[in-house]
Structures are given as structure tokens and as C-alpha cells.
């Protein structure tokens, strides 16, 4: 058996096939005429502003951007962008976006979802989209709470969370969204924070350029029902020790004056240590390689995230590897069938088949 030539581009890019803009664009062009209706202080505003500012950078035609969302506060996102958009139903955006991406290679397709939408009611679609590696970009706004339904615990809420539906505290073990995505062997997995526009934008850019499913978890504050859930990452006094920065090719070192670092620890695990305590100092630190094929490395990184109240978590691109995108493969089969079998006059002969008789 010879290997199958899939005919894929040798330099896959998430935007390949999307027509380029003929003129430079600005942020205002991407702002729709709809009044934004999130609560004052919601982290969604910062993400929206960053996103509207970032889209012109892509240099693609505005009408070739399609936003698909589910249900939840974050899923209002498409209404506020002057692109094509669909505000769909709870949890189903990845499935709907899969159909759109398969049908339209000329679109840059984005899914906007939340922790309830993507990880609870829509968990199945999320993992299957990730394993298929459909060329679409998933932005998961994780506020660790149900906001639109007014404050029930979510699948990312910390154990013991007291909410309207858990007056004695939640007994659910939460998902770590990055671990889940890596478990599904997602090819691009990143985490960023709503308030760090520069980091957020850089992650969005990398996500857009990746061919296949890009999964971006965005820590997003809900000031009404779960305020300060990510305070450790925002408070100038704590954030240096809280954020484990992942920079491809750099040793993973952080904390005030870089006193902390990530080292290998036992079987396929990583741990945070005082750099000063390491025998060889910085030379003992793990140098981040987002292109590591084995997802176990990125998974080990994801386990450095606190499971309960968040005091520390890695932020950045955990994994970025190449694998053929599902929609490309699906279209390739259609093209191959058309080229090798032809369609000229074919439908009539299909209907006729090979076994006919004639009545005169």
C-alpha cells in the first residue's frame, strides 16, 4: 500500500482559502449597530474590544468571517460584530460550525462559547470537533459560573461552590478545559485572560493562523455572580506568582524575580519548584515546546492549574501541532470523486443503474 496523497497545502494556514481584503480595515468596520447588553464590568467587553481590534489585522474580507455561538452571556458575541453570524442553541455551536466550515472553505469560522455551553450541555460536540480537527476557532469564555440563568455552578466551578442551586456547596468535580481539550487530542490549545489584551490578541492571532481546530480558553470575570474568580491573575501583588507563562522555546520560569520554574517530576508529570533549590538552576527547567507531538507533555502542563480556587495556572499556547483538518479531508474526497468518477450526464445514468428493462 502506498501512502495516500491528501493533496493538502504544505504550509497549512487557518486562513488559507479565505479571500484577502483589498483595502486596509479598521476596528470600527467590525462594530455592529447593535447595543451591547452585557452587565457593566463584564469581562466580555474586554474580549469583544480586543477581538474587534484584532480582526482587521487578519487582512481577510469582512464578509468572509462567520461567527457561530451557542447560548449564554458570551454567546451574544456575534450580534456585536459586523460579520456574518449565528446565535444558535445551547451547546450546539461546534456542530453547526462544523457543517458551515465543511460547506465553505472560503470562510474564517469562529465559535464563541462558555463553560456551561461548551463543557456541559455541549460537551459531546466539543470533544468530537476537537478530535476531528475541523478548521474552526473556538473561544471558550470561562467564568466558572452560569451567568445568563443567574448564578448556578458550572462544570468549571470549584468544589464546594455555594450557589443558588448548591446552597450546601457543589459536590461536582470540575473540568479543566485545557486538560479536556488535550485529552481529545486537540491540535491547538491555549489559555489567556480577558484583561491582558496584548496576550489575548497574540493568542487569537496564533489561533487564527492554525489550520484545524484552535481551542482558546479565556479566563473571564463575571462581576455579578462570580466576581474576582481570577483575581490572583489580575492583582499586581499576586499575578507574577500566579501566571505560569508559556512561551515556545523559553524555559518556563515565573514569579517575582523569576524565583519559580517548572521541572520534570516523576512519570510524565511536571512540578513548580524554587529555581534556587534546583541543582543546576535554570538549566533544570523545562524549555517549552508547543510543537511536542505527544499530548502528554501539554497535558502535564495543564495539570499545573489549580483545581479549586485559582491561585496559579499556565497561560499561553500549550500545544500547536499539525494534523490534517477534517473539512479539508472531506472536501478532498468530494474533489477526488468528481475528478476520478466525473459528473457529466452522471445523474441520469445513476438513476438508470445497471439493471433495467423496457416496456414498449
Amino acid at each position, binding site marked *: 500500500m502506498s501512502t495516500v496523497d491528501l493533496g493538502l497545502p504544505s504550509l497549512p494556514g487557518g486562513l488559507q482559502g479565505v479571500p484577502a481584503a483589498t483595502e486596509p480595515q479598521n476596528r470600527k468596520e467590525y462594530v*455592529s449597530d*447593535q447595543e451591547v447588553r452585557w452587565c457593566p464590568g463584564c469581562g466580555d467587553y474586554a474580549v469583544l474590544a480586543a477581538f474587534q481590534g484584532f480582526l482587521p489585522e487578519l487582512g481577510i*474580507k*469582512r*464578509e*468572509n468571517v*462567520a*461567527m*457561530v455561538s451557542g*447560548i449564554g452571556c458570551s454567546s451574544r458575541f*456575534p*450580534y456585536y*460584530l*459586523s*460579520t*456574518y*453570524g*449565528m*446565535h*444558535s*442553541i445551547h451547546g*450546539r455551536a461546534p*456542530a*453547526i*460550525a*462544523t*457543517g*458551515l*466550515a*465543511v*460547506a*465553505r472553505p*472560503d*470562510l474564517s469560522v469562529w465559535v464563541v462559547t462558555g463553560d456551561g455551553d461548551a463543557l456541559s450541555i455541549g460537551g*459531546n*460536540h466539543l470533544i*468530537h470537533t476537537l478530535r476531528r480537527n475541523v478548521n474552526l476557532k473556538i473561544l471558550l469564555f470561562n467564568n466558572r459560573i452560569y451567568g445568563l440563568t443567574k448564578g448556578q455552578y458550572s462544570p468549571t466551578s470549584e468544589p464546594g461552590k455555594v450557589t443558588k442551586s448548591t446552597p450546601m456547596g457543589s459536590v461536582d468535580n470540575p473540568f479543566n478545559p485545557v486538560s479536556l481539550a488535550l485529552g481529545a487530542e486537540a491540535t491547538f490549545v491555549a489559555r489567556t485572560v480577558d484583561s491582558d489584551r496584548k496576550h489575548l490578541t497574540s493568542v487569537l492571532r496564533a489561533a487564527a493562523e492554525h489550520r484545524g481546530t484552535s481551542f482558546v480558553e479565556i479566563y473571564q470575570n463575571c462581576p455579578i455572580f462570580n466576581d474576582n474568580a481570577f483575581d490572583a491573575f489580575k492583582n499586581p501583588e499576586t499575578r507574577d506568582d500566579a501566571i505560569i507563562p508559556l512561551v515556545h522555546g523559553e524555559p518556563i520560569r515565573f514569579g517575582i524575580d523569576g524565583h519559580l520554574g517548572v521541572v520534570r517530576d516523576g512519570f510524565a508529570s511536571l512540578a513548580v519548584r524554587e529555581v534556587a533549590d534546583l541543582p543546576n538552576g535554570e538549566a533544570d527547567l523545562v524549555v517549552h515546546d508547543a510543537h511536542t507531538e505527544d499530548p502528554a507533555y501539554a497535558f502535564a502542563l495543564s495539570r499545573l492549574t489549580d483545581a479549586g480556587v485559582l491561585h496559579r495556572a499556565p497561560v499561553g499556547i500549550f500545544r500547536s501541532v499539525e494534523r490534517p483538518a477534517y473539512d479539508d479531508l*472531506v*472536501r478532498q*474526497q*468530494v474533489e*477526488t*470523486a*468528481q475528478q476520478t*468518477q*466525473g*459528473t457529466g450526464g*452522471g*445523474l*441520469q445514468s*445513476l*438513476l*438508470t*443503474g445497471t*439493471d*433495467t*428493462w*423496457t*416496456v*414498449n
Partner: protein
Amino acid sequence: MNRTVTIEVKQLDRVVIRFAGDSGDGMQLTGDRFTAETASFGNDLSTLPNFPAEIRAPAGTLPGVSSFQLHFADHDILTPGDAPDVLIAMNPAALKANLADVPRGATLIVDTADFTARNLKRIGYDENPLETGELDSYHLVPLNLTGMTVESVKEFGLTRKDASRAKNMYALGLVSWLFQRPVESTILFLETKFASKPAIRDANIAAFRAGYNFGETAEEFSVRYEVKPARMATGTYRNISGNLALAYGLVAGAQRAGLPLVLGAYPITPASDVLHELSKLKRFNVTTIQAEDEIAGVGAALGAAFGGALGVTTSSGPGISLKSETIGLGVMLELPLVVCDIQRAGPSTGMPTKTEQADLLQVMFGRNGEAPLPVIAAQSPADCFAIAVEAARIAVTYRTPVMVLSDGYLANGSEPWQIPVIEDLPTVDPNFTVEPNATNDKGEPVYLPYLRDPETLARAWAIPGTAGLDHRIGGLEKEDKTGNISYDPANHDLMIRTRQAKVDGITVPPLEVDDPDGTAKVLVLGWGSTYGPIGAACRRVRKVGGKIAQAHLRHLNPFPANLGDVLKSYDKVLVPEMNLGQLAMLLRAKYLVDVVSYAQVRGMPLGAAELAGVIGNLVEETEGIDDDARHLGADAAAVTHGEALKIEPNGHLHHPEGAR
């Protein structure tokens, strides 16, 4: 070949034959081949496969029995027949499981090889029924088919087990001889199917020929039967099953609309074959997505529709339940989407391989809110093609999800199909909006996604990639014209009524009534796969002098505009259904007509004879004839079309009495 008895040829006008065996015995294949031979000979035909949901239930048990029934005739027929004239039973379980359906006087060809004490005991026979005399009222032809098969293929060096697997081809050869079927296509089929396994190929062909030659040379049979080709309308025909016809119709519908077809589907009995067939048709710009679940299947189809494709999803009742919310979104988004429900016996998992038409109310109303959508139903296997083309027309023209109803009986059954000419099929223009369709209060050109065509009320459909027409749509209530989110009470009322008016206004052909001399007082009205049994029942009633009108609905939402008038022009309307009266409920609610419901929910098609009895009785009741004096129903139930069949080992043809 030497024979001492001359072979006599008897003319028959129709025959019902049933092949039955273990689900591993290849009965469906045998039936398919006999059907292909019969189709190529030019008989009209109708088939009924019947198999267990288990892929391989334990061999030799009653739950493991699989069967295939074929009705073929020299005239136009409508059903696979109520009862077989000939049963081929490959083991004791097949005999026991099917005997109740076989009328006395019919022929039983039985493979005796497995009639051992142990096998018999396993299925509850204390003694061998072939020897006790309990089958004396049948025409029993016991043959060691397995033994003769093994003997006929011994030169190929197969194990006894492998050799005996060719017994279905031996049986097929025998009945092919008995009914004078052309055999070339089966030999060609076996050569192709087993091309990579020469020993198996040669054994199957040898067994098939040996079975045929056994009929020719052995003196078991001295009569052969001939069913002349049917006189059918001029044209070119092929045999086609409902699911295949549906798949072809979907492709034709998409092509006539100039749209790519994107199918999102999850495997489910009895709909999976539509997924299988469409996945072979990529060259016609067909994309198939085997989704992670039913919801994702319809979601992918709807996403593709948003992108400008004809979105299609195929499933059965349980899957439709899961898709309901997304279909509701399709109603709100007003995008073309074809949803095919190949119904099966429910509720819940029900009986997956058995047929039913109890999803009508689910597809009509099974969504939250006022979510109307068109519903159409195929009436025969070949009609699945036309109904799929019609679904694409309605979906694209009116920008709406369309529900297509088929069922297990249509899906797996087959019949001759006059092959349509593609150019004669209607074309549909998707009529995409490509430039602004209105001006705002500042006089600037704008695109209003919910601006409607005044005739059809279809909304303006612009697809992503169209410059200047970007817009956002979703499941939240829309403002009229702009499509912006709106909670305005008056707007909601307007939009609810507009969506309803759009569906109500879909162009539907008028209902045609078959009322030969226009004097019938009773109308039989059906929908879906009951078309065949109802038509056959009406023929029986007419044959014995009853006056009866028949009409069949292919459009269930909206109903044909003349339906109310039709209903009111008859004294009585009988509505036979394979549910507890779902269409009857709709008719009563909409037209205030007290229709008579005839409901049978047995997982099997309605029986023509039984239904004929009900119709005949109702006709006489309507005519004021007393109970005691009524005979039309009994007469109609007892009608046999022409000669019935009886195969005598000694060459005599009998006419069995009584009902079949």
C-alpha cells in the same frame, strides 16, 4: 437429462413467495436476487424484508429468523401480499416462525437437514412436524437442501460448514427453475461479488446451477409456473428500494436547485442506508458527515444551509426527538433543511426493524412554541424519489425545514420504478440575495434578512461571503424585516402568524380522488406507506361489487386546499393508519368531520384482506344494510386475484379454498 414425466407449464397471474431462514443464512440476499431476476423478467413486484434487530441471534432460534417476501404478478400490484403461496423454510425455526402466515393449501419447501431431535426440541417441537401429519393440509416438499448443496460443491474442497453456506443459492436455483426466472443476472452477480474468493464464487454458482438442475431433472416437480410480464406504462424501468430512491431524490433535488448537498446523520435503523447511499455519491457534490450524535447531524446540516448548501439530515423517530430543538432553530432562522424521518415502531427504542407511522404528530408538533413546518410523506418505495425532490423544492423555495416521512416498510421494500428523465424534473432557483434589498431612513441601501417575497413569504437569503449583506440571525425572536432581536409583543404576534402563514401558503397539488363512477358514499383516506394495502383493499371491494372512493395524502402540512370539500362530499370517511389515529385526529380538528379511524399498530404493514373486510362492512353500514345481511366485507376479504397456487409433487394444480 432424462425425465419420465413431462413438465407442464401453468399460467399464474400472481405469486407470493417467502424465503425464511436463520439471519446468517443469507435470506435477504436470496430475496434480493429473486427480486432482481423477477424485475428483469418484467413482472410487477413488491417486496417485504423482515429481519431481527440482532445481527446474529443464536442460530436455529425463533428470534433469529429472517425472511424476505416477494409478490410478483402479470398486472399492477400494490403490496407484497398478505400471505405466501410458497414458503421456503431453511430450518425448523423458520418453518415454525412463519407457518401462521401461510394459508392452508400453500406450498412449503423445507430443508430437512436441520430437523434433528435436538433442534426441534429447542424451539418447542416434541416431534418432527414433517412426520406427524400436522402439515397435511399444506403441500409439503421436504428436501435435504443442505445435503444436496454440500454434494454439489464437493469438488471445490470447502469445509462442510463453508459448503453448506451455499444452500441459499441452491434454494434460489430451485425456485428460479420453478418460476422460470432468468438466471444470468444472478450468475453475473455471484461472479462479481465473490471475485476475490474463487472457491466461494465457484461453489455458489455451482450450488445455484445444481438447484436449478434439480428442478429440471428430479421428478419432485412436474409443474413449472409462468407469470407473464406485467402490462405497465411504456418506459424504462428498474427495481428500487425506498431508501435508495430517497437518496437519489435528495441528490436530484439538490442538483435541480443548483446547490451542493450536505448530509449530517447518525446511524439508526432503518435510516442508515440513506447515509450509506449518499456517501457513495460524492461525485454529485454530496458531502456526508457521520456526526457524533443526532443533534450534531442536524446541526451540521443547518450550519451548511447557513452557508448556502441544501442541508439534509436523515433519521428515525428516536433521532427526530433529539433533533427537535435544532429543527425549531431552523424554523426561526428560516433556512432550507430537509429532515427525513424513516419511521419505525416506537415508542422509545420500540421495535427498530419493524414499521409504523406513529411519528406524524411528533413531526407536526414536536417542537417548543409555535413552530410550523411542512410535512410530506412518501406512499411507496419508488415514490420516495419524488417526495425527496418535492422536499428540496419546498425547502429552497420557502426557506424552511421540511419533514419527509417514510417508514421501515418503504425503506427496505422495493418495486419497479419508471426511471424519470432528469430534464423533466422541476428546477428551483435559490434566488440568493446579492445586493441590498431596502433603504434605511437615511436613504442608504441596506439588507433586511427578513424582508419577504410577497407571494411565498420566503425571506431574503444572503449567504456568508456576500459583500455588504453581513447580518446576524439566531434563535431569539426576530424583528420583522430587520431580523434584529425583538421582545416587542406585537412584533412577536406578527412573526408567529407570518411563519404560520408561510407554511399554510405553500403550493400543494389538489387531492385526487379515485371514485370510478362517482357514486361511492364512503371514502378511504390514507397517507404514507398504507397506500399499497389500501389500494389493494379497495380493489377487492370493487371486485365484489362495492362502491368505494380512495384518496391518499402526500402533503400533510399544509393539506391540499380541496381536502375539506372532499371530506364533506362523502357520507363516511375511513382513515386506516399504522398508529392510533393520528391523521384522524388532525382531520377532525381541522375540518370537524367525524372520520372513522382504523388503527393497527403491529409493526407490520396493514393486511389488504383484513382492511377490505372493514371497508366492505362500512360501505354496507353506510348504505343502511343490517348487520345480519352484510356480506360485502367477507366477500372482499375472501377475494383471490385470479388463480391461487398450489404446487403438487405429482403435478396437479389445486385451487385452495378460502381466504389467503
